[in-house]
């Protein structure tokens, strides 16, 4: 399966956030990193797609009062997910490799 840029960002967020990788956590992280408004649904949909593809898996976390006693669904990257990211990184590195050298000239 090939993933989109957005999905790539979300996969990386899931990896970075660890325990905090639930919907709103990822959403906030993306907003912070990109500096742009991000819609909650536009995070939810890629997440379910990634989960269905087996690149991430989920488990239930704690329940807080602010959530009305409902548990968080926390995502964790799978082996396949790591492989996918590796493949992407390879492509990215190949393309970005000489970037700073070329630009600074």
């Amino acid at each position: 399966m090939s993933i989109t840029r957005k999905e790539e960002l979300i996969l990386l967020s899931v990896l970075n956030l660890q325990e905090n990788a639930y919907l709103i956590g990822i959403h906030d992280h993306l907003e912070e990193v990109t500096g742009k408004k991000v819609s909650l649904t536009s995070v939810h949909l890629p997440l379910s797609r990634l989960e269905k593809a087996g690149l991430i898996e989920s488990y239930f976390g704690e329940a807080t009062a602010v959530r009305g006693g409902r548990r968080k669904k926390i995502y964790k990257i799978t082996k396949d997910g790591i492989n996918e990211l590796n493949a992407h990184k390879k492509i990215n590195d190949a393309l970005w490799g000489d970037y700073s050298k070329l630009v600074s000239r």
Partner: protein
Amino acid sequence: MQKKEDIPPVVFERLLIRFVADQDKESLTGDFREMFSRISKKKGKWIASGWYIIHLIKLTAVNLFQRFIRSFYMLGNYIKIAFRNIVRHKGHSFINIGGLSIGIACSLLLFIWVYYEFSYDSFHINSSSIYRVVTERTTSETYTTPNTPGAFAPSVKDSYPEVINAARLFFTRFSVKYGEKSSNIYQEMGLFADKSFFNIFTFPLITGDPDIVLTDPNSIVISRKMSENCFGGMDPIGRTLLLNNRQTCIVTGVFENVPDNSHMEFSYILPIERVRENGFDLDDWSRFAFKTYLLLEQDVDFTSFNDKIRNIYDDYSPSGNPRPILQSLEDIHLYHSGTGLIRYLYIFAITGIVVLAIACINFMNLRTASSGKRSIEIGLRKVLGADRTSIVRQFYCETVLISFIAIISAIVITILLLPVFNDLVAKELKAGLLLNKDMFTLIGAIALFTGIAAGSYPALFLSSFQPASVIKGVTKKGGMRAANFRRILVITQFSLSVILIIGSIVITKQLDFINNKNLGFDKENLLLMRMNPRQYESVRNELLKNPSIVNITKTNAPLLWLGYETTGITWEGKGAEEIMTIQLRTVDYDYLETMGMEMKEGRFFQREYAADSSQGFIVNEAAVRIMGIEDPVGSTFAIEGGKRGRIIGVVKDFHHHSMRDKIEPLLLYIHRSWYSNMFVRVAPGKIEEAMALLRTNWEWIDPGYPFQVSFFDERVERMYMEERKAGNILNVFTIMGIFIAALGLYGLASYMAEQRTKEIGIRRVLGAKVSTIVRDLIEEFTKWVLISNAIAWPIAYITVKKWLQNFAYRTTVGPEVFICAGLIMLVTALITVAYRTIKAAAADPVKSLRYE
């Protein structure tokens, strides 16, 4: 603990739970609540609620869409089955799809045309803020003319900031001469216009700068077509044209040909200043001679602006109490010539809808009827595990598929029929009109609506069967309900057809009435032409020597034409408040006899009475009625600031303009020089000879102009073109409607006969006569026709009565019209049904019993 404001409304959460996939229910509601409380704290509960709703919709829309797509996993199978069914019942499918596509094609043709008429003048970029100013006057009745005085446009432009731009237009028909040869003359419509013309209207210039092309008083801007006609491929800029043999103009620009759907037609534009050479004053408030167009600011409410300028003419006190009225550019074409096109367009739009409805009903009917055959298939599907929704879906898929097939063939039919239809409506409609957003939406909507409407009954009804009883064929109760449903549909269809028939009978009748009504003069063997008044007398004497010409007279204006009118008249016993608008016609001594008119009282102008030419007036009966004079002959009469004298006679009312309107007051008098037209009365059967004579003398009759003579009966005919066109179209589409209805009836009858094959067989074996069985089958259809007539008559009666109100002189609508329409429907229905039923009844009973 959480504050109350931080908790989203319970309804929202319920909705969320309802629409979200199971595994996400808990976490998502939690996530949403967390986000909600965060937004609520920052921006308040309302914004948070808004956020919740928007994201709820976003989330569920995607979800529902996915579900919808997933639900069509059987789509391939449905389509396969649908095609198998179409192929298996070829005849039935043909009637089914054919009827529907013909119906849709008919309505598409009508819709294209109506759409085209409504598109008039919409090509101007500013079309919604351009207005034409017309003048409304109230005398005995209120009426409007499209003319305004020359000073009006500059005055409103200067005094009102709402007006961005204003232009005066003056239409004309000049002969245009180019090059040296005298044969290079042709007559074209053109106009004089203010410089602002190109800034108000969107007539793109091919060459020339719109801001300056009309600046030089000697300039002329011509159309692309005219440029090609006059100069071929050469560059027209800077070349000269001679107008009316005296005005020289230099071409400064070329504009793209005026589109067909423009209410103005012209081939060249001249600067407005040049109308002075034709005797018009541009700064004058009293002579209403110019068309005025205004471009208003986008956000100006034109009715309130209209109120502001309502009294603009009061300072100049012209007669007849004129008021300016703004008319939106896009309305001009639809409401032109007083009565307007619009009422016909409505008739046609409605006809289109009715024909479409008949076709759809047909389709629904046949689908419902034949769906009974599918009950075993449905039973099996259910046994094999299909749930109800999947069967509903299957039927919808199938009917929508069939209706899309029908739509596609309808579009093909439409394109093929367009040339024929163009002849019928005298338009140049192009198939390209189908290719726009509105039409696509319309076509898609028709297909979807027909599919869903036709599929609903079988889909919802058949899917509710118990599989066991369906397979056993126990569908009695449902069969009854289906039959009732069909009955209602057929009756609706017949009623619509009867209404169409009555409508076209009445329109045809009204047309005949108008054509055969006594006009008050003899329109046969009458020729009309323009002429040069200077040589009139000698021309007349010369022509009268020829036996083919009976009489000749001159006048200022053709008949069937409203133009020269005044309110500036006084008559004996006229009250201070009394006002009458009267049409002015200059005539000579031979007018009455040449035209074949009659006097009511008094006498016509006679050469023996010298005073007739200077002091005599003749009015028509309508004028006498309004003036209220007991004994008009001999009473004094005067044109203000003009001649005064006595009324010497009253001419019997004749139609001097359209028969749609009442006959207006008319004044006939002899004038020194105001003549421009000549009527020639030809001996019956000598038209050819007379035409040849006129042609040889043409150089003398109207020097400098091409030969142009019009037959007066043709002119009368042309006047009612719109009605004639409407009549033809309505007749054609009524026949189509009936044909489609008959097609459906045939299908239905054959289905019913098929269903009763066994019954008929048994009855035959037991000794029933063929005629008895046929009567039995036909009886039901007859009953339907009678019921639908009862429904249609009152509706049709009210509708036609209302339509006829548009005419001042109208035909009567007696019971024979309705009975006739009813009979047509009955006969059509019987013929259609009889063939099929006789075949069924006469079939070999042995075969019938073996059936199934």
